[in-house]
């Protein structure tokens, strides 16, 4: 008699570079997705044991509890400076800064620009959800025109608060930047592309090719007052038109990297 035996292959499991701790992020918040992608990349590159992460101030202030590698907590906006200090004295380690839009584009504007100017051999993961989550939903430098937040209750008035800043476009003008791209986390296809970009960014560091940053359009369901699914649609329909998903700076040596 012929018997049929069915084996199950493991196709995907939680990456080792993620700690077992449950995150405090809201349901559907794409910080979790970004964390997961970074962890997957660190696993695939086999660099977990030499990685040092720098956590920002913002919703991801406890990022150090969510990853399974050494982590330090920076003052608000100063992660690129802290990462510089670490990488300069420990160039053999993999050092990355993980930042939100207030941390990177508001209070930390000088630090990110100058880390790029100096071409620091670090990787920056920039989570852009156009709002300040941790402090309860205030306007961010990347908040869209007309977007209502607790500090722009009638919608962002560009006459008063100016236009949102496109960080990737700006950083790409800096000679010291080697890899500056914007991706999005709003659907599986874009998440796959985001992961590739994150992998490339860490390869830039691994190969000593300079400063890399991946801007990730992300959601904030709670402060956008949308469901998680609606929030992803908001990214696609409202944010992507303003923050195009492109490669803004790719040095020739970086172009040659195949991931």
């Amino acid at each position: 008699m012929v018997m049929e035996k069915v084996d199950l292959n493991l196709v995907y499991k939680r990456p080792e570079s993620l700690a077992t701790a449950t995150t405090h992020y809201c349901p559907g918040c794409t910080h979790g997705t970004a964390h997961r992608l970074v962890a997957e990349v660190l696993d695939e590159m086999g660099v977990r044991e030499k990685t040092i992460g720098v956590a920002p101030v913002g919703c991801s202030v406890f990022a150090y509890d969510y990853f399974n590698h050494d982590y330090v907590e920076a003052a608000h906006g100063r992660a690129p400076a802290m990462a510089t200090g670490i990488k300069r004295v420990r160039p053999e380690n993999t050092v990355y800064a993980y930042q939100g839009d207030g941390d990177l584009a508001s209070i930390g504007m000088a630090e990110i620009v100058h880390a790029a100017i100096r071409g620091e051999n670090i990787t920056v993961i920039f989570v852009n959800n156009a709002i300040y989550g941790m402090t309860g939903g205030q306007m961010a430098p990347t908040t869209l025109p007309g977007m209502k937040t607790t500090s722009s209750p009638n919608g962002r008035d560009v006459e008063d608060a100016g236009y949102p800043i496109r960080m990737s476009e700006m950083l790409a003008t800096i000679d010291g930047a080697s890899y500056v791209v914007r991706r999005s986390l709003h659907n599986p296809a874009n998440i796959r592309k985001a992961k590739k970009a994150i992998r490339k960014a860490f390869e830039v560091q691994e190969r000593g090719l300079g400063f890399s940053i991946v801007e990730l359009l992300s959601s904030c369901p709670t402060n956008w007052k949308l469901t998680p699914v609606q929030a992803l649609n908001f990214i696609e329909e409202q944010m992507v038109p303003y923050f195009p998903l492109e490669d803004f700076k790719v040095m020739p040596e970086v172009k040659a990297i195949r991931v």
Partner: protein
Amino acid sequence: MALKGTIEVDPMHCKGCSLCVEACPQNVIALDMEQLTPKGYHPAHLIAEGCTGCVICAIVCPDAAITVYREAKKKKTR
């Protein structure tokens, strides 16, 4: 015929956000309204046959709560 797959959802990590429900191309995931995780969420679970182990749910899951399996090709044994 598509390979069969299956998923395990970790109740400690699932926050019932529904992104996997929305993303599943086979529409075989839903939130289990009869269950609550220890954190008080309705966890995602398979509600029908048809999972192909495509991993898309795990790709969208912000909490890395999903483990995905796929059947190997069937073996015949005597």
